[in-house]
């Protein structure tokens, strides 16, 4: 193991290589360009393929094709680019194919800007494209997690044969932190044909196979939607993750994910110096959402402050999940506005 100083975007790219991803298709957009640039340099060294596609639409469909062929495959993008990918992401879910989308947000709507934001929480956690589906969504809060959660995204995408999103922002993408990284593992047996029996390799030695999302017969689509629903319920039971920070003695709870959770941690340190017993709940999966953890903690700590870098998106999930006697407050900073620890401390004092 080596301890390496790395940019968040590079950690995503290196995480993909460690996960056995050997195919990347993408299109440049700020603030995630380090991901394709890193992979353009590194993938050929491990026998992988990098293609700069003609658009995000083409990128995600190349991902779909490679996934249908049984590969671990990734693309990365930001705001407008991910909007263009939504059709393909819906098809991935509808075709039950794994694929990883690294999403380094920029402020929107429209061309917006390149400042950090959590304004894409809503898009990512509600499926994003057309139809009754969801994507697994992981929200790293450090460069270390940009690496480890990218690997996790590949594992979960495979486990459920469903697209998985790693949602970060420009802060996490551009900042450097130390990451513990071992040597790159060999591409493992999870890519073997017998383990990916659903993939397309040609019909040698078996019946012809089909990967599709079109169901026209009466009742077929309803059955299929219920099958997807069962999958999402299983995700919720088996793969919902969160982290707690100083909640044991807390009288006041902050819920924040990603970059906002780092700022909230600093604010909690300041608050505790002044005697305010504040704790943090940080969702690691934002889909499936850690509803149970929010419910249980808010029962014990009935004052909850949601801190997020948008006009208030995750707060809706917190309100739905929170204990009915809990009070839920919001401190929201959209459009690239960054809450300082002092700003958050002020909010803590206001609602404590």
């Amino acid at each position, binding site marked *: 193991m080596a301890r390496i100083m790395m940019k968040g975007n590079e950690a995503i790219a290196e995480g993909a290589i460690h996960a056995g991803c050997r195919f990347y298709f993408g299109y440049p957009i700020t603030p995630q360009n380090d991901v394709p640039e890193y992979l353009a340099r590194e993938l050929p060294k491990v026998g992988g393929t990098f293609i700069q596609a003609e658009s995000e639409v083409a990128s995600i469909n190349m991902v*779909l094709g490679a996934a249908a062929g049984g590969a671990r495959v990734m693309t990365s993008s930001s705001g407008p680019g991910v909007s263009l990918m939504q059709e393909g992401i819906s098809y991935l879910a509808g075709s039950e194919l794994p694929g990883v989308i690294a999403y380094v947000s920029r402020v929107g709507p429209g061309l917006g800007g390149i400042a950090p934001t959590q304004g894409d929480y809503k898009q990512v956690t509600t499926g994003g494209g057309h139809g009754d589906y969801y994507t697994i969504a992981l929200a790293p809060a450090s460069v270390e997690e940009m690496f480890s959660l990218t690997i996790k995204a590949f594992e979960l995408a495979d486990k459920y044969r469903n697209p998985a999103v790693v949602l970060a922002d420009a802060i996490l993408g551009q900042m450097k932190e130390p990451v513990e990284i071992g040597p790159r593992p060999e591409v493992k047996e999870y890519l073997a044909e017998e383990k990916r029996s659903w993939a397309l390799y040609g019909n040698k030695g078996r019946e012809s196979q089909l990967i599709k999302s079109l169901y026209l017969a009466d009742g077929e689509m309803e059955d299929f939607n219920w099958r997807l629903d069962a999958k999402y319920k299983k995700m919720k039971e088996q793969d919902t993750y969160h982290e707690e920070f100083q909640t044991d003695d807390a009288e006041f709870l902050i819920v924040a994910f990603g970059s906002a959770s780092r700022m909230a941690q600093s604010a909690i340190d300041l608050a505790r110096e002044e005697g305010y017993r504040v704790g943090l709940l940080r969702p690691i999966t934002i889909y499936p959402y850690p509803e149970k953890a929010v419910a249980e903690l808010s029962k014990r700590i009935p004052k909850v402050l949601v801190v997020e870098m948008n006009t208030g998106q995750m707060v809706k999930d917190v309100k739905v999940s929170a204990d009915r006697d809990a009070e839920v407050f919001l401190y929201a900073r959209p459009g690239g506005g960054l809450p300082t620890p002092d700003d958050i401390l002020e909010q803590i004092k206001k609602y404590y």
Partner: protein
Amino acid sequence: MSEAVNNSGEQKRIYGKPVSVKDNNFHFCAGCNHGHAHKLIGEAIDEFGIQDRTIGVAGVGCGVFLYNYLDIDVLEAPHGRACAEATGLNRVHPDKIIFTYQGDGDLAAIGMSETVHTANRGENITVIFINNIVYGMTGGQMAPTTLLGQKTTTTPYGREFGNDGYPIKMSEMLATLEGAAYVARVACNTPKNYLKAKKCVKKAFEMQINKMGFSFVEILSACPTNWGMNTQQAYRHIDEQMIPYFPLGVFKERTTADYL
């Protein structure tokens, strides 16, 4: 199935349904050339013995049910994106035979970008392009290849260039790209044209097997239902109206795999 008797009196099969074409009845309308196109692909697959390593990518349109008729692995692509799916498959499985099957709306309207860039990358795949100058599955709307003056459900007064632009000649356009290795336009409206079409489809797959790059066959096809014609009228329409604007022929044939 025909049988011939040789000199010694034994019967010998000289013609039959390709092995890689399933026994299912086609859902296509009477006079439609999709059935011929499927058979041309099946014959090429049989002749090269590549059935067990061929993966088809079906575009959205009347051709989406490719998997009901060809006994091969098939991936269904979103509308217009088949060339991107084929690119992903081809990069993962460079030794498999990958082809797309796309109509004119799919390939030349919504999927123009994917088509052009896949050709330009010289992606080693084969594209079978069914040009029947109309949107078939959605009920006869204007296609990018709809002829000037042609009445469709969205050009009720006839296609007029001032409003709708001109029919796109995909083969001529793609032939200008360095990445395109083989580009041909064929038709299935007469036995003579069908035999030429068979040669060209076979050639396109052969180019891919030899790793020459992007191969493309445009098949001028009849859509009697949406043209409001019977089969005879539709086949004559191909001769009289389509071929003069979309001339048949081989527009490009690279002879070596060397790039510029």
